[in-house]
């Protein structure tokens, strides 16, 4: 079955028609060409496809595209301004929060959600916020540090 849906994606209104079985991740990557959210497991275990759906972190592989109708979505592509990187992105570069980088978009989204609710998170809170995002390179310590530094730099 086809659904006509619309949502706000990275502050831009999107309208499209999707098959009911397709996931938000499929639609983002294949139909809209936004490959920031990564495909890692398709079962909601790894967090590589994390996006913000109405301000809440979700695994885009676990959301059917029609469920996103009317929602506001933020992907990693919407994090930076035209010209300037988001402080989180800057901090990940400066503090080695990236190794192979496959988990990084999901980590940034999870961090963004955390900073939206807590401006100065403790290390413990950061660990907890990232527990659904796997990083096989084991870059967690530097990811946590990147988020801490970014949160302190924010006004």
């Amino acid at each position: 079955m086809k659904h006509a849906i619309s949502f706000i994606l990275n502050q831009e209104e999107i309208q499209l028609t999707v098959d009911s079985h397709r996931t938000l991740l499929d639609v983002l990557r294949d139909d809209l060409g936004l490959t920031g959210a990564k495909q890692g497991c398709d079962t909601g275990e790894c967090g590589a496809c994390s996006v913000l759906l109405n301000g809440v972190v979700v695994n885009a592989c676990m959301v059917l595209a029609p469920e996103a109708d009317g929602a506001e979505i933020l992907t990693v592509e919407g994090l930076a301004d035209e010209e300037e990187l988001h402080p989180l992105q800057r901090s990940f570069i400066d503090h080695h929060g990236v190794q192979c980088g496959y988990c990084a978009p999901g980590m940034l989204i999870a961090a963004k959600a955390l900073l939206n609710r807590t401006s100065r998170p403790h290390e413990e809170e950061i660990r907890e916020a990232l527990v659904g995002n796997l990083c096989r390179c084991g870059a967690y310590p530097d990811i946590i540090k990147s988020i801490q530094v970014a949160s302190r730099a924010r006004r």
Partner: protein
Amino acid sequence: MISRKPHIIGKPFPLIEAQRKLTGRSCYAGDEKPRSGQLYARILFSERPHARFQLHHVEAARSAPGVAALLTGQDLATRLGAQVEDRELLATAEVLYVGQPLAVVAAETPEAAEAALARIQVTYEDLPAVFDIEEALQGRVQVHPHWATYRGTDALQGDPRRNLAHTLRFRRGEPEDAMARAHVVVEHAYTTAPLHHAPLETHGAVAHRRGDQIVMWVHTQAPFLQRAVIARALKLPLNQVRLIGQCVGGSFGGKVHVSIEGLLAAIAREVDRPVRLHLTREEEFSATFITPAMRARIRMAADAQGRLVALQAVYDWNVGASVDLFLHQLESVLLAGTGPYVIPNVSIEVNAIYTHLPPAAPMRGLSLAHVHWAVEQHMDELAERVGMSPVDFRLWNLVKGGDKLFPHFVMHATGLESCAWETTKAIDWHPEAIPTGPNAMTGQGMALGWSPILIMPGCKNRVTIQCDGEDLCTVIVDGMDVGQGYYAFITQLIAFELNIPVEWISVLPTDTDAYEPEWQAVYQNLLWSTGRALLRATQELKRQVLSYVSEMWEEPVTNLDIVEGDIISYATRRRMSFRELLERGSGQGAPLVFRATGEYAASTDGGALDQRLQAFAATGYAAEVTVNMKTGHFVITQLAGAVDVGHALNPEGVRAQLKGGLVQGISTTVLEKMEFEDGRPISTDFMHYPIATTADLPRKLYPVVVEVPQSTGPYGARDVSNHVIIGAAAAIGNAIYRATGVRIRDLPITAQKVYDALQRAEKGQAP
């Protein structure tokens, strides 16, 4: 005043390629936009570990809607292998493991490809299968009865009747006699579980035949190796296969060797449209490679003064259905098999044993982590028996600079001792167990380790730098950045050597077509070999630039230098922007191009193993655990890891690698295990193959950088990424022992195993 800029070597240097990864721009093979006319490939995998099989209704599958091409082993019978062709590209008559490819299809949509494969009916006639190495060595079932006919097996010391793929031996002195006379002899067996690389990005690639060349966009760690293996399997000249490197979403050794890439090339050859193939998570776990399980049997002896006098060790590896990818590891194990100690009487045997499990591939230093899992727990036990502290006993017997370890290898200056001191200091070492709660005991353990930097035969690497007005400085390399910071390292070195801004430099994606067809770059020890090639290229490029300016200014070249992007004369104080020179061109309308290539080829004359041995990377670890003595549940509270990197060119990058290695060390020590049921993998998702999350991080993690320069490395540096993991398991095992008095000799260490051991100890049984 003219002065050289305080140099950027040894200073923080960010990961230059990180920005596109962090902004979501296309980078990995799976991010490529669907190409026009693109087809989707899927693979049919074996569901039995050992069986004769037949495929039925293949023609019906071939004529299914949307199918462009389909291949089975009947259409394409060929073998795969870098050194030993002990794999089939597509199974022809018998399957040797679950997950072996039987057919590959390319169709208009992934669904059409699936539907086509669903039409194929596979009938199996099961044959006896063998999964255990001991059973395999008895030879009642042969995994490779036609082994001797495979290309490359003549170079191996194997015996197919006993499923022995390869044996390596080393002997020094008279270990049997020395054992008989020794004051203390300790003997145990240690085992480990098979593991999976489990990269977050599953295997995937795009291939497109253009004319007679198959072009592949792949995320391999070793494009030149893969090109050679694919071309040989498809019986093509090397220049008819071209690999272009993409960002790699985690490899750890799992994306070095050809897995699906050969099938993709084969099916792409059948059509003239691009074909895309990506494995699902389940396929990634069940149909790529595993890192093999080890069994080590060790006897070690010391005299009354606490000197090690003899070691007898047999390291057996369950390499599944293929040894090809693991051969280099066996050599490393042989060289490192004593641990970093001086032992006058030694015999070491390293065996690779075939079974009906998936093919083995090495994983980031883990074979050596498993060797040290055995040796370093053994060292602790010996220390206790001779009445010395774990630290003193190790230092007393430690390898030092100047020790002649092998006929062609004398040990260089090493930071082993610093690794021991710095890591134990980091966790505030106390050798006794401390009660830290009603049922809780806290204990600390340490381990040292070493890892041979062993140049592969035929090792060479090349770097080409081109400076012109259009792109400023572009760099062509033959290695791959897999997240270890390879491109950052190259950029940093060129910026330093040419003394130009970092922003001018861009490293091009690795492309096998940038080289002559016979070029074979290695993929290991890249810092070592690329670093030296790079220094040659920058010297030559600088020479070209300065000679050009010398003619233009009519000044001797010895007056000239490049300083912060300007060409200057120390004599006349003339100064001119190098960038302007490039952009202005030669003045006769022709662009000005400087281009220099540097090459490094290791001399491998004679071919003896120790002649290829360049150095040993030294490592040290210290761990603290708190164990619940009732339940066996334990928490790693502190972990310190040190690597002697020679010279940390990018200190934060080195520490990042160290921290990552420690986290992987924890993960592979306490969480990871590939489970099989009659040869069928059942750990096929992250629920059943858990890897470390932020919840598994110890409170305190200490990356320790030790720097004892390597005279032969670039700026005194040594590689780091592969060595960081080596002693984590052993240090944690020793800490568990210190806390509880029980020793776990089988990886992973789980609460259940600790509980069982505590129960046995309570009943007075042998631990």
